[in-house]
Structures are given as C-alpha cells and as structure tokens.
C-alpha cells in the first residue's frame, strides 16, 4: 500500500526578507526512508520542521498522514495540530530530553499526559522501547548521566512511544562525538528495516547510501536533485550536487 505520508506543495517560507524555501514540492510515501542533504543554511532543517508545524511556511499546502497541516499558509487549529503531532515523531539535533525526568519518565510523560495509556501500560511500553534501543539498564537514570549517543537513543524511544506514522530526524548525529554516531545510526537502521516512514536530515552519507530509498539535495531553498542513492552518489547530475558531494565525501 503506497499512500503519501507527507506532501508539501508550493511551499514558500521567509525569514524577514530572506526566502529560505522557494516553491518547494516534496512528498514521502508511506514506508519510505528519505534523506535530505545540502549545505548548511540550505533550508533542509526548515523543510523538516515545517512537516510537524514547528515552522510555519507563509505560502503553500502541507498534508501529513492524510490530514491538512497547512492550508494555503494557514496552520491547523491548535487542538487538531496537537492530535496530528502525535502521529509525527520528531528527533532533534540537541536531543531535547527533559532533564528533570528520568529516562523512563521521559518516554512515558507524553502518553500519560495525553491519556493515551495508563501509567502502568506506558511504563511497560517504555521498557519495551528501551529494550529496542539497547538501554533497558538505564531506565531510572537521569538524562544528565547519559552519553550523547544514549541521550539520542532515549529521544528516539520517546518519539516512538507515541506510535507515530512518520519519524522526522533533524541532524540526529551532528551533536555527537564521532565514536557515538554509530550506535544511533544502528537504531535508525533498525527502524527503517521495520518499515517506519522516515525523513532524515543528515550529513552521514554512508547512512544515506545504505538505508535511504531516496536522497534529496536541497540548495538555497530549492530541491535541485533527487534519486535512488545508487544513482545519486555515483552519477550526480547537478553541478552543485557534484560540488557538494565532492566536498563532504573528501572531507
């Protein structure tokens, strides 16, 4: 079954006079793993954040999981937006774990607050998710005592606790020490294998090559090229893509 999990149509987004997204059309099929790459400031993070309504594009339409998130530049009402967001998980570059809550509470706070699960059930789900990301022994630790890689894995478990249909990753490994990147990518690969719909902004080209169904190159607010990773990495067409790949891959 191949329906669209995310659709963006004619998105224009400005910061003041600066246009960061220029008439962008973009969509993600259900079950697809899409990697967004591009130089910093190209608009890839902004594009991703638009998909969960954290940024509002002034013009265009966005649908997520069959529901209209942005209608001609107008964001969905607050109540519906909150409900829709349960279906769209977000993983941040800086983790954004809740420092006053233990690991297991970080994962269960949203399901309990939103009355999706009882306290006991959400704890059970949280434990299962911690098992999945390999951190069952850290259930009662506080975030301050985790490494960056562990924090990000908890953040992924926290997003999964809402049983989202789509997971958005905003440079999930960029804040990590190099030796901790692998453990996070490992978890993301696992999710991809499970058939999770994922949109990932990253500089990890190996991950893109191995896991992505499609790689999308954004430059200066425009999608300039996209394709299957094999074609994309071996024979990029656009000169900017060639230049960008040359720079990152030879770094």
């Amino acid at each position: 079954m191949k329906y669209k999990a995310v659709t963006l149509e004619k998105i224009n987004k400005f910061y003041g006079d600066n246009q960061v997204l220029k008439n962008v059309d973009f969509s993600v099929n259900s079950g697809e793993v899409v990697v967004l790459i591009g130089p910093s400031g190209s608009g890839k993070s902004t594009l991703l954040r638009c998909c969960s309504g954290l940024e509002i594009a002034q013009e265009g339409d966005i649908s997520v999981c069959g529901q209209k998130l942005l209608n001609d530049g107008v964001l969905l009402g607050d109540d519906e937006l909150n409900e829709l967001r349960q279906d769209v998980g977000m993983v941040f570059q800086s983790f954004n774990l809740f420092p006053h809550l233990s690991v297991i509470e970080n994962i269960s706070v949203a399901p309990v607050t939103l009355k999706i699960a009882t306290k006991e059930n959400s704890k059970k789900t949280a434990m299962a998710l911690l098992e999945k990301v390999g951190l069952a022994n850290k259930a009662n630790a506080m975030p301050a005592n985790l490494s960056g890689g562990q924090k990000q894995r908890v953040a992924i478990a926290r997003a999964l606790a809402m049983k989202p249909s789509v997971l958005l990753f905003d440079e999930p490994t960029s804040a990590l020490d190099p030796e901790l990147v692998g453990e996070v990518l490992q978890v993301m690969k696992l999710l991809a294998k499970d058939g999770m719909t994922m949109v990932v902004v990253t500089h990890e080209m190996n991950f893109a090559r191995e896991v992505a169904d499609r790689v999308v190159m954004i430059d200066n607010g425009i999608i300039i090229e996209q394709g299957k990773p094999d074609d994309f990495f071996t024979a990029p067409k656009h000169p900017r893509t060639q230049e960008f790949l040359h720079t990152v891959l030879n770094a």
Partner: protein
Amino acid sequence: MGLDLDFTPVIESFPALLDGTMITISVTIISLIIACVIGMLIGVVRSNGNSVLSCFFNVYVSVIRGTPLLVQLFIWYYGLPRVGIMLPSFLCGILGLSLYSSAYISEIVRGAIQSIEKGQMEAARSLGMSKRQGMTKIIIPQAIVRMLPPLGNEFIALIKNSALISLITIHDLMHEGTNIISTSYRDLETYLVIAVIYFVLTNISTFILRSFENRQLKSQAN
C-alpha cells in the same frame, strides 16, 4: 563618658517583643504565600508574550516596583478609607507587602521560565502536548529549580521590609520595640535586640530554602 548599656528594660519586655515577632512572622508568611500565587500568575502570563493581560501586568509591575513600599502602605491604610474602603491595619499590611513582593516574584518567575531552552517546549509540542501541558509538565518544573535562589533573596527582603508595617499601627516586632523605647529611653539596646531577632528570622528562612534547593537539585541528578 563610658558606654552605659542596660538591657534590663528590654529583657523585662521580652514577652511583648515575642508577640511582635509572631505578628511579623505571620504577616510575612501570609504575604509570601499570596505574593507567590500572584507572582507566579503574572510571571507565566508575561513570559508568554503579548496579550492584553500581559500589557496590563507590565503596567502593574512597573508601578509597584517604581514606587516606595511605604507610600503604597500609606495609600492602602490612609488612602482607601477616602474612597469608602476601610480595611483593618493587619489586612492593609498583608495587602501592601504581598502586592509589592508579587511584582518582584513575577520577574523572577518570568526570567526563570524564559531561561529554559526553546527546545524543551518544541520537544513537548512535537509529542502532541498542548502549550499548557508543556508549561505545567515540562517548563515550570525546571524553572522552579532556577527560581529558588532569587526567591530566597526576595523572602529575606520581604521579612525586612515588613518592619515598615509598624508605621500603619500594626503591632509587629518593630512596633513593640518602639514602644519599649518610648518608656525606657533605651534605644540602642532595644534596636540591637530587634536587629538580632530579624537576623535570626532571615537566616532561618535562608536555611530552610537552601535545604529545599539542595533536595531539588539532588532529585534531578541522581
């Protein structure tokens, strides 16, 4: 001429001083509770930006902070009866102290809330929580820990400022001291004893707050 200190009149009137101390403590605690409730409310509203209510509170905070507490107390005690509102002096004292302190506490609350990283609210919202749920479950519990040290200062200021209510005929510690002086003429001795009592009160409250603070910090870092 040697310094001729005689503490006997103060010691003989010590029960009166203790009564005054009890008044000081109760006025301070009641005012503190009211000030915290009002200050919290104003701080949360103002940290959320530009509503009509927030503009109103802006004016409130700048008026209260921009005028002397003594003038405010006199307005409540001497001014209100002119417009037909007669409040007992005890209530005027509580009203004056709690409104005054609430303006400062609201700034502490606002500062603490705004110091929490933007990503915390984003994470809460992206999980589907409403702004209010994000505030009560995620932001405020973290902000409270950051409020505690400046709140301690504010509590101490409130205890000391409460001496001014003696001027609107409340029989607090300061007022009882003045009474002792007016019959014994032992001003230095009396003021020294009063100073010691205020010192003890402020330091007890510092100690209580500090241990509360430590407990909060520990519970977040184990």
